């Protein structure tokens, strides 16, 4: 008897106990560190998404460009002072350019006969004499100062004209029609926010600063602040609802603890399975919580917490149908879908178990609230059947005409300011209209060969590594040189130069054997990086990058295009999604048949009407993955409403439960329609449409049937 009483007494603290245990585990494991605002975390980890990550690892992805307006002395002074201020931070470095990289300079000097074009020509005595005389005359008469190349006096070698998009003014990088420019990089592993802070305070109307990390930092901050806002708003609305309408502080405290426990448990589980979890999973998780609040409201309003009236069958069927829907979807092989499903399954199960089996032991008093929804009684019970068929027709039609929006960037924060800056620099640096691609090879040498082959075919492409010499070309050039007696050529030059008037032995090192018979180049990843080129390796393969005009057909390279990657990944799971949809539909029908025997069509209309209205609203534009997933949440919510509304005897309480559930969901998530982040906006849009539809059905529908 005593043990029984103690057990009963301790059950009262079970909810708090669960919360405390989970909070300790949560703080120990810190799963929130695995939350990522990077949209890439939504994508499956396949070969292509791996390449996207490799692209982010290139040093050029870490570049920050600074441009100070003006070409006068003041502007020059400004950029120099700005450089000094920024370089005072030891984790930031000034990018070595072509003109100042000593490693590159000595490489070019060493392989000058191999890197330049070789113009094989007549090398007889008359020709040599003529050329030397021409050079001598130019030195004597041309007022524009020039000198004679003592290594290549016959000009057998020539360099291709390289059109540098960035000019030099006073020896400093200069952007045409704008001003002086500097390019910075930062040491690997440096906290991006720290780097951002250094540059952010230098931004003025005259100083433009841009780097890919700006998107990462600014968008992540924006997404995080809006997600935090969502969490805070949800909590605040709950508090207002409970205090002003229900006036039950104990229920409020317990519900908040339960929802937090479920969210913590779900997040811990998901982050134990995956190393990187999209922050949008958490946002969906919050949306899912509103479904579980529903379980509490229904138990509460139907008096299950006041006195033990047994097992609430309706809530169980509601939970079961939602559980089944997410369970089926969790088999789709797409990490984001799987993460959301697993999160939902764990969060919903945990909340349901606590609301259904622990709360009845906590004895919450049923409130004497007079709030009721009006019923216009426009729908007679028999009309629901026809209504359902019309809805099925509308949904089928809309499903056929809908098109998918596969541009993942539409889900991100539309950072117009950074977009404009990026466009400004792309245009000035000649990369506008070009898309990046990755070249992959088993060795650095093959990587260089591939780069040179691409550059040879597409002269407008920017392929940095094509400036290096490949083994193949080295051997080929060596063979060409072996057929020419350069020693003999040199002797003739020395001999003729004397007669023309050049200093004795001035050309003694012309076509030097040291430069002609130089050792073949050997590349290691570190030496290539020292030369200023971006190459990364995953231990098996080597990668570098290039830029090419959009729509260029290129074989054997990987284009870096998140939209295409997202599209391919989604298309790969298209059939799975379709099968899941059909399975979910059948399971809903089955559960409604079981749970809502009395008014099957009425219950079904509570599922189909919100679905049809939402589909209609979102069908004006191509729909995206977030909207599809929110449709699942709306269907999960409306199944519950459908089942509750089938309860003939307690319809008034059911309506009240639905009303409060609608209010909390509406206030918590409807407000997101004002969000500037694509993903959050779509959540708000679908939530509002779905909830308004349920409200319309509640008001327009039949009065309490029994």
């Amino acid at each position: 008897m005593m043990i029984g009483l103690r057990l009963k007494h301790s059950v009262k603290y079970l909810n708090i106990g669960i919360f405390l245990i989970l909070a300790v585990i949560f703080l120990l494991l810190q799963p929130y560190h695995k939350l990522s605002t990077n949209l890439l975390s939504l994508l499956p980890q396949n070969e292509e998404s791996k390449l996207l990550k490799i692209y982010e690892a290139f040093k050029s992805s870490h570049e920050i460009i600074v441009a100070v307006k003006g070409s006068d002395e003041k502007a020059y002074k400004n950029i120099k002072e700005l450089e000094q201020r920024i370089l005072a931070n030891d984790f930031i470095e000034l990018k070595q350019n072509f003109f100042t990289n000593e490693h590159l300079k000595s490489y070019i000097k060493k392989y000058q006969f191999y890197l330049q074009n070789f113009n094989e020509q007549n090398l007889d005595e008359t020709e040599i004499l003529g050329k030397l005389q021409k050079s001598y005359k130019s030195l004597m008469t041309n007022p524009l100062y020039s000198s004679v190349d003592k290594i290549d006096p016959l000009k057998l070698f020539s360099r291709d004209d390289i059109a540098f998009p960035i000019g030099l003014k006073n020896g400093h990088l200069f952007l045409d029609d704008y001003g002086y420019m500097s390019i910075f990089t930062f040491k690997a592993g440096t906290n991006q926010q720290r780097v951002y802070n250094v540059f952010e305070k230098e931004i003025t109307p005259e100083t433009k600063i841009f780097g890919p990390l700006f998107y990462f930092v600014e968008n992540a901050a924006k997404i995080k602040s809006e997600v935090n806002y969502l969490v805070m708003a949800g909590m605040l609305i709950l508090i207002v609802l409970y205090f002003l309408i229900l006036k039950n502080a104990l229920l409020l405290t317990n519900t908040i603890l339960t929802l937090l426990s479920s969210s913590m448990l779900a997040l811990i589980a998901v982050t134990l399975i995956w190393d990187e979890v999209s922050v949008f999973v958490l946002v969906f998780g919050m949306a899912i919580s509103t479904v579980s609040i529903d379980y509490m409201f229904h138990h509460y309003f139907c008096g299950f917490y006041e006195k033990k009236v047994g097992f609430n069958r309706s809530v169980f069927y509601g939970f079961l149908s939602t559980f089944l829907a997410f369970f089926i979807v969790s088999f789709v092989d797409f990490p984001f879908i799987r993460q959301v499903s697993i999160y939902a399954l764990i969060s919903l199960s945990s909340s349901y178990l606590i609301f259904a089996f622990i709360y009845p032991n906590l004895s919450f008093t049923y409130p004497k609230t007079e709030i009721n929804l009006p019923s216009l009684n426009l729908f007679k019970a028999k009309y629901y059947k026809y209504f359902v068929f019309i809805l099925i027709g509308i949904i089928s039609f809309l499903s056929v005409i809908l098109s998918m929006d596969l541009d993942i960037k539409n889900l991100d924060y539309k950072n117009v300011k950074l977009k404009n800056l990026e466009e400004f620099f792309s245009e000035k640096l000649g990369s506008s209209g070009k898309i990046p691609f990755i070249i992959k090879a088993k060795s650095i040498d093959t990587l260089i060969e591939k780069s040179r082959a691409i550059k040879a075919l597409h002269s407008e492409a920017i392929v940095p590594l094509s400036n290096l010499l490949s083994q193949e070309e080295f051997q080929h050039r060596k063979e060409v040189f072996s057929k020419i007696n350069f020693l003999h050529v040199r002797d003739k030059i020395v001999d003729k130069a004397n007669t023309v008037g050049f200093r004795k032995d001035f050309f003694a090192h012309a076509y030097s054997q040291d430069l002609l018979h130089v050792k073949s180049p050997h590349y290691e990843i570190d030496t290539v990086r020292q030369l200023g080129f971006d190459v990364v390796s995953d231990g098996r393969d080597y990668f570098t990058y290039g830029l090419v005009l959009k729509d260029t057909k290129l074989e054997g390279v990987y284009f870096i295009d998140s939209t295409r990657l997202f599209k391919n990944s989604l298309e790969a799971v298209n059939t799975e999604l379709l099968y899941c949809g059909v399975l979910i539909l059948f399971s809903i029908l089955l559960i409604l048949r079981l749970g809502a025997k009395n008014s099957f069509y009425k219950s079904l209309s509570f599922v189909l009407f919100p679905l049809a209205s939402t589909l209609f609203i979102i069908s004006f534009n191509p729909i995206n993955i977030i909207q599809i997933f929110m449709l699942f949440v709306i269907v999960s919510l409306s199944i519950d409403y459908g089942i509750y509304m089938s309860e003939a005897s307690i319809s008034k309480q059911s309506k009240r439960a639905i009303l409060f559930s609608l209010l909390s969901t509406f206030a918590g998530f409807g407000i997101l329609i004002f969000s500037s982040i694509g993903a959050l906006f779509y959540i708000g849009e679908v939530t509002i449409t779905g909830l308004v539809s349920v409200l319309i059905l509640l008001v327009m529908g039949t009065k309490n049937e029994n």
Partner: protein
Amino acid sequence: MTKFFLILLLGCSLFASESFKETRYIYSIDKEIHYEGEITFAQDSIKIEYTKPTHQIIDYSSEDENAQKKYFYLIVKSIHDDNQVLLNDFFSESADGNATMLLPKELLGDFIKKVRFKKDKNSLEFLQIYMKNDDWIKIETLR
């Protein structure tokens, strides 16, 4: 009216041309070559009009494609304008008798050994550029 004359005077001093003689030593042929002409400094360019031995005009600016022309402009213009920011960036400065010696830092060091010049008040007396290939160019203004 006073302002107008002041502006006119300033304009005249900025764009006034100066006569000069240039001696160029070319190591490869071990010869000195002599030129004479007029040099005019504008806001963003230098115009050199050679009158001897033949008549020819050469314009220099910081946006020249030719690297040697670009560097020549940078040196002559910075010294003429007394642009300390640029000079300090590209050279380390020291006194050499009653003249000034400039030793190039990284970028110009590939082409130039040193630069010597002397200014009397604000006008240039002479400027001598010693090239890496042992050539040198000396420009002296004539008054």
